[in-house]
């Protein structure tokens, strides 16, 4: 884990900045979903974004690959401003370099597990079928599902589907992975298998940004925690500091509510 | 294409009421009467068929199911020929084309309407029937006072759609010389001979105006009923303009 400054302010976009939010604002009509977001995810860092429902965590992570637009501000992914106007071909190319894992998996039900993983490298990156197949096989092994290569998503459990979804995203060899509440739709007994895959990724040095409610995971794997409420990042800290000595009153309330269970 | 206005001006009466009074009532009036009578008489038949298909007695369920499948699998024209042939034999005297068509429509639309009624009954939450039975109502009482009123109200838009389909089916009466709108148009064409496109364009547009208006009415009804039932915002699908009615069961939505 890298030692980090206990502020949410952006450092100058240096060589090691992967995701950089500068003065990001977003409104849905009159409602402000994101307010003055300034934050940075450095290369190799694992950032966990937490907070109460409606705090804007999902909206925030979805702006990174432009599944959501922003009203103002600059969002740099690996040096490219992804929210700037650009041709769709350029946007698609950028997106292919950002791994995204959805809460509802969104596997393609008409394709087998192997085809799900192979499709995008072949069609978007132009990888040859044999290479794509080999890579898919290796990724399936990595997430522990080699024996399910020929199965269809409907035949898998939620935890298995999510692991396939992670493999599908990894197949594009992205420099960073985004997780939008990856375990929230899973039955409790399947949460562990997905988290352990994510833990493995973190150990290998993958840059990760996760929106999650899994506080143990955050405590053990995250380099930094961003606490959000009402569209703002109210506190950023390393896990030790955040969980033991939260500064912001709302963060304190959030954590005490959690412990009350 | 200015011939269209002239043709309309000269023949509007024929198109509207056929050769009445020097012949039977025809034209659009006949189409309307045929459709209204057809769907009205088909209604009780459809309720009986639907109940038969939903009943637990195989003796009732199987014949009803077979009848519906036959109607779905055989062209309307074929059924018209059957009725034209069998009905006089059954009754013992000749039947006019109009009455033949009427009986065919009652049978044909009755079968399709029974699918609508069946879907309406089945789509009600089970709790309705359970509550009614728990209060002591018998099967028939439950049907009469609790299930059918709700089911039929919910299926009003679908029934309206089926009425539109009935209007369109009346055109087949032309083949057995029933004097309805299509027959009238063909009469005009056989007289004029030089403007077939204009004549049939008028015919097509007449049906279009009527059927389109009724279909829009059905959609409006569907939105209103959905709003009443759900009370919340209308789902996007129902707000669409050209979607087939969502409440229409698939076998009926594809009514030939």
């Amino acid at each position, binding site marked *: 884990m890298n030692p980090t400054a206990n502020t949410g302010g952006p450092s100058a976009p240096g060589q090691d900045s992967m995701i950089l939010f500068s003065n990001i604002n977003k409104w849905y009509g009159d409602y402000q979903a994101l307010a003055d977001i300034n934050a940075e995810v450095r290369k190799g860092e694992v950032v966990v974004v937490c907070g109460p429902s409606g705090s804007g965590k999902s909206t925030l992570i979805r702006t990174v690959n432009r599944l959501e637009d922003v009203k103002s501000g600059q969002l740099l992914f690996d040096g490219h401003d992804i929210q700037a106007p650009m041709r769709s*071909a350029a946007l698609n190319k950028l997106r292919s370099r950002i791994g995204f894992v959805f809460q*509802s998996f969104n596997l393609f039900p008409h394709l087998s597990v192997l085809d799900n993983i192979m499709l995008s490298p072949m069609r978007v990156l132009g990888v040859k079928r044999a290479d794509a197949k080999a890579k898919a096989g290796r990724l399936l092994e990595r997430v522990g599902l080699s024996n399910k290569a020929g199965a269809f998503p409907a035949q898998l459990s939620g935890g298995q589907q999510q692991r396939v979804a992670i493999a599908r995203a990894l197949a594009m060899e992205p420099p960073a992975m985004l997780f939008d509440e990856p375990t929230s739709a899973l039955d409790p007994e399947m949460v562990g298998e997905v988290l352990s895959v994510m833990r493995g990724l973190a150990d290998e040095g993958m840059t990760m940004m996760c929106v999650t409610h899994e506080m143990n995971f955050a405590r053990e794997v995250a380099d930094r925690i961003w606490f959000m409420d009402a569209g703002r990042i109210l506190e950023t800290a390393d896990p030790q500091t955040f969980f033991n000595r939260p500064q912001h009153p709302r963060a304190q309330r959030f954590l005490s509510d959690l412990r009350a269970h | 294409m200015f011939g269209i206005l002239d043709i309309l001006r000269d023949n509007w009466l024929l198109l509207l009421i056929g050769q009445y009074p020097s012949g039977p009532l025809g034209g659009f009036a006949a189409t309307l009467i045929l459709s209204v009578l057809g769907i009205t008489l088909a209604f009780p038949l459809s309720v009986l068929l639907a109940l038969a298909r939903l009943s637990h007695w195989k003796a009732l369920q199987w014949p009803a199911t077979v009848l519906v499948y036959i109607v779905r699998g*055989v062209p309307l024209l074929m059924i018209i020929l059957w009725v034209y042939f069998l009905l006089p034999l059954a009754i013992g005297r000749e039947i006019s084309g109009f009455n033949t068509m009427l009986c065919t429509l009652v049978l044909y639309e009755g079968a399709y309407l029974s699918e609508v009624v069946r879907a309406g009954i089945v789509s009600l939450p089970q709790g309705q029937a359970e509550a009614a039975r728990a209060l002591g109502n018998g099967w028939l009482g439950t049907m009469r006072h609790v299930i059918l009123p709700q089911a039929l109200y919910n299926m009003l838009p679908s029934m309206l759609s089926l009425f539109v389909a009935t209007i369109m089916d009346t055109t087949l009466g032309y083949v057995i010389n029933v004097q309805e709108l299509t027959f009238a148009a063909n009469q005009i064409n056989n007289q004029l001979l030089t403007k*077939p496109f204009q004549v049939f364009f008028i015919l097509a547009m007449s049906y279009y105006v009527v059927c389109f208006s009724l279909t829009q009415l059905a959609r409006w009804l569907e939105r209103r009923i959905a709003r009443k039932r759900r009370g919340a915002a209308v789902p996007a699908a129902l707000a669409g303009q050209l979607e087939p009615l969502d409440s229409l069961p*698939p076998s009926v*939505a594809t009514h030939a």
Partner: protein
Amino acid sequence: MKGFDLLAILLKQEFIEMLLHGIALTLQIAVGSWLLAMAVALLLLVIRLTGNPVAERAVAAYVSYHRNVPTLVQLMLWYFGIFSLLPDVLQAWLSDHNAEALLSIVALGLCQAAFFSEDMRSGLRAVPPGQAEAARALGHSYFGAMRHILLPQAIRNAVPALVNHTVSLFKNSSLAMAIGVAELTHAVKEIENQSFRAFEAYSVATFLYLFFSLLIMAAGAWVARRWRVTAAR
């Protein structure tokens, strides 16, 4: 009334020929119009997907017309109306080449195309929005996403409705009788005229229609089973 004597019909050479000819024509019209309907429906879908508002309204008008005008009237408009507007050369060529059957295929095909395109459109709307999001997130282009991810699911969703409409299309082939095509219904009407055996003649036709309709429905069920797409979660 004479007893039910199927063989009186089936053994007569002339009647067999009429029946076979009728069946052949019915199948030709059904298959021809189905192919035309599918092709036009896909075209309409593509036009709709461009998002151009004028295109959208044009397609909507096409669908609205074909769904609110009776099929028989559409057939008449084509055969009596539009045919007369065609240049003489084309009229002559058509008359030599079975104009009735060809125009039937055109009329029935274009009519059912409206229904097929609506079925596909509903099928597309039934694909969960998460699928398009996942496709975008992975970097697929709009057309790539359509081709590999969205349209395959849309078609699978549309299969039941498409099958029902295919049965309708098949039944509509009988309408061609009204413009003189000697298809199956016309054939048995002729046989009845000549043999006075309505019961037998009609039974044969009814059996054949039922057979093919049920065959289509069974084929549809088989396709639906093979392509069973449990809803994407």
